[in-house]
């Protein structure tokens, strides 16, 4: 006869006070650019933006406080955590491209701690082991029911970008994952 499994019951508010394995922090405000461009525009755009736009899948570049994330063969997400004006920089490049300021469309949650991978994997199907998703790796993907952009900024730290109206869901989903990460 099969053994009976016994579920343990969690109190309703156990996930509201923080976790031993994972820390979730709303990221400070940042400037963001959704950038589309062809290969011939990349040298000019990279020079104007002060960061080399990566051309390999799942890679990003960092220059000072400015990240450039490869999202697709002709698509990047620029994130500036400083005072830089991304729109002005792109406009000064003299190249044919499409740039949309999405600073207020996205917000980010910083997920850090030894359980960060487990917390994100509670709703994200990507392999986040260090060999497959190293520091600097980035990808558009999904978390539960919503689309996110994931960037690994340290061995145990990820930046999770999502659309701002989805952020309560994303934070809640990550909280549930974080609560499970210690088990």
């Amino acid at each position, binding site marked *: 006869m099969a053994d009976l499994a016994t579920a343990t019951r969690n109190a309703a508010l156990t996930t509201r006070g923080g976790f031993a394995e994972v820390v979730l922090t709303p990221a400070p405000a940042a400037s963001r650019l959704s950038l589309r461009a062809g290969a011939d525009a990349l040298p000019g755009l990279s020079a104007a933006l002060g960061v080399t736009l990566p051309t390999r*899948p*799942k890679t990003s570049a960092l220059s000072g406080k400015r990240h450039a994330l490869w*999202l*697709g*063969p002709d*698509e990047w997400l620029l994130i500036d955590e400083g005072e830089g004006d991304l729109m002005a920089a792109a406009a000064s490049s003299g190249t044919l491209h499409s740039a949309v300021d999405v600073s207020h469309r996205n917000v980010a949650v910083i997920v850090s701690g030894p359980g960060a991978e487990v917390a994100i994997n509670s709703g994200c*199907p*990507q392999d986040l082991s260090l060999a497959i998703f190293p520091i600097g790796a980035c*990808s*558009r*993907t*999904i978390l539960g029911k919503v*689309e996110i952009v994931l960037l690994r900024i340290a061995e145990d730290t990820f930046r999770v970008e999502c659309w701002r109206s989805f952020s309560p869901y994303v934070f809640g989903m990550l909280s549930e994952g974080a609560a499970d990460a210690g088990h």
Partner: protein
Amino acid sequence: MLLIYCPYCEEERSELEFRNAGDAHIVRPANIAEISDEEFEEFFFLRQNPKGLFFERWRHIHGCGRFFNAARDTVSDRFYTTYKAGEPKPDVAAILNGEQDKGAAR
């Protein structure tokens, strides 16, 4: 969970990141305004829905965003191969022979 190789991301990703986008290699007539209703029906609505090997479009919608093509078995759900949009349709015999070789090796 089904893993699908995206030819643009150059790795296998979960099916959750993808959307199916119907038959591949359907060419829109260049003279679309001149064709008959029957020809338009043929181009726009009529599909074969075969059992077995099938060429279809997929989109890595929650990844790189690209459309690409795939050869999939509609019975087993097995992906034989995927290739970038615009690349020629792979030879059916080569795909099926490749499968037989693999079968013999097993």
